[in-house]
């Protein structure tokens, strides 16, 4: 039987990484993810593995690049300002097709912003973030258990597709305590071997070159088309979402992470007063559940994006439904967390509105 404990989100991520065989953790302190770096500083050394508090986030991500290149599981974690610094390295990891797991415990921005919970890095998380034509798989857990589970899965997917995988969480999820089942890590058994491409292995016969430089005529385009094929495969196979009370819904909320927790209670409140609300909770932000949203849009007149950012996810919902229904926005920012009653107020307004009107809460 797996053990049940009470744990903070940030520490649950750390423990899941240790269980999943992460060999090297590199990080730099930043709130609200400090518990994760602190946890790893102890646990990794206890396990005889590598922990370095790097001189900067730039160094941390490049240490990950090196560790990934010799074929060991590696991770880093940070929050907005640090993730921005890591984008150069993430782009290199993507270009060189190395496996990487990283965590963004989101806080308010832009700039130094504040240390309050936020989802303001949605664009950065889902649209690449660094330079060049690449994608990153993004998990958006909404409780401590999911932060644990998707960390484990994240390491597997990083290895399966040789791609950076991001766990996008926020200051609330990272710091809150919830009961957690410490599931044992199970190797899927079918992950591709790293023997053919890892560096420094005396067993490989020919010298190996790991790079993201492709200067030859057409060489980079060819490589990027190959990456694109991989991204299409991921979009086909790895999209995840949860549907709650959609069958009879007249209005469907779309929300992830902390926002989804609030949207869920708002949904129950709305139902209590007779409004049939439902919730679609994306668990992967990339790939985004766009196909499913398009299907749902044919059955309802209204959707409401609920997010702790000002319309970043809303753009993806609108793109997905392609005009098939109205998509409204309930956005809070910079530490503002959506409130159930305010969401229900807006739902009432939406249900009483007509025509093409798009209703926002701000």
């Amino acid at each position, binding site marked *: 039987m797996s053990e049940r404990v009470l744990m903070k989100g940030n520490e649950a991520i750390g423990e899941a990484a240790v269980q999943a065989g992460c060999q090297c953790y590199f990080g730099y302190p930043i709130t609200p993810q400090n518990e994760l770096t602190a946890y790893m500083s102890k646990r990794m050394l206890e396990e005889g593995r*590598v922990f370095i508090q790097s*001189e900067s986030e730039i160094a941390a991500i*490049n*240490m990950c*690049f090196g560790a990934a290149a010799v074929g*060991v599981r590696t991770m880093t974690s940070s929050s907005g300002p640090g993730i921005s610094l890591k984008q150069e390295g993430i782009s290199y990891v993507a270009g060189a097709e190395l496996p990487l797991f990283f965590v963004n415990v989101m806080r308010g921005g832009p700039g130094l912003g504040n240390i309050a919970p936020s989802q303001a890095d949605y664009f950065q998380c889902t649209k690449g973030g660094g330079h060049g034509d690449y994608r990153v798989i993004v998990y958006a857990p909404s409780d401590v258990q999911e932060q644990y589970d998707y960390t484990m899965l994240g390491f597997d997917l990083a290895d399966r597709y040789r791609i950076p995988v991001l766990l996008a969480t926020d200051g609330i999820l990272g710091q809150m305590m919830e009961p957690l089942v410490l599931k044992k890590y199970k190797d899927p058994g079918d992950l591709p071997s790293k023997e053919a491409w890892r*560096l420094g292995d005396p067993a490989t016969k020919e010298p190996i*070159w790991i*790079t993201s430089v492709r200067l030859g005529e057409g060489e980079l385009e060819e490589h990027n088309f190959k990456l694109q094929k991989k991204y299409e495969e991921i979009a086909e196979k790895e999209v995840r979402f949860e549907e709650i009370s959609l069958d009879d819904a007249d209005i469907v909320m779309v929300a992830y992470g902390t926002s989804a927790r609030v949207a869920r209670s708002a949904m129950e409140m709305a139902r209590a007063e007779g409004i049939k609300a439902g919730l679609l909770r994306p668990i992967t932000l990339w790939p985004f559940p766009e196909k499913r949203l398009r299907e749902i849009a044919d059955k309802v007149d209204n959707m409401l994006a609920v997010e702790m950012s000002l319309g970043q996810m809303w753009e993806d919902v609108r793109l997905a439904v392609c005009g098939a229904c109205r998509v409204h926005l309930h956005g809070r920012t910079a530490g503002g967390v959506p409130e159930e009653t305010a969401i229900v107020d807006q739902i009432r307004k939406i249900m009483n509105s007509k025509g093409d009107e798009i209703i926002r809460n701000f």
Partner: protein
Amino acid sequence: MERIFTMPEAMKPEQTLYCPGCGHGIIHRLVAELVDEFGIRDRTIGIAPVGCSVFADKYWNFDVISAAHGRAPAVATGMKRGRPDSFVICYQGDGDLAAIGTAETIHAANRGEHFVTVFVNNAIYGMTGGQMAPTTLVGQRSMTCQLGRDPAIMGYPIRVCELLKDLPGVAFMARGSVDSPKNVLKTKKYLKKAYSNVLEGKGYSFVEIVSTCPTNWGMTPVKALEWLRENMLEHYELGVFRDCDAEA
């Protein structure tokens, strides 16, 4: 007949694309000869930096990774920590090591990371066409100091060995040059010491090599060697700056 001179096994049989008189080719060869001499080709990983040596993988016959500009020491750290039985050579130019990658360099040295750094100081940004480097001499002209480096505006050329030598993590630190066969051989001796230190687990080992960039200095290869001797060696003194064995 006895064959007395061959291509090192750790070097691919390719002609380098470096300009005539460029120091990179000589230094690549020294790096490779020592990989063979220590018999460590199968576990060596070289780092190709961002700079003219970005394609070092085309010449070295062992594993190579290309790092982002200045990040080689962090990448080296990740590789060596992730795979302690590997032998990592962190090859960097002056822009890479002493400008954009200064922080990574200082902290890798300070942690006493177990890899060899080969620092090619040609006092210029070669690859991007001859801009000022942190090591460009006072008065030296470049694309971005066309009237000559003026320290009042642009600061002074950094002496990296002198800056790093007192960090306790450093096991060996020396500065050589490729301006003459004699100095090439001496540089090889320094490199050899750096390799053996790392192989024996003594810690961070660093060899700066004063080198040439005839193309961006606007000189013939012969003139470039003269210029190096007459100007660079005065500011960049050759010799050993740190040797943990001598101290012990």
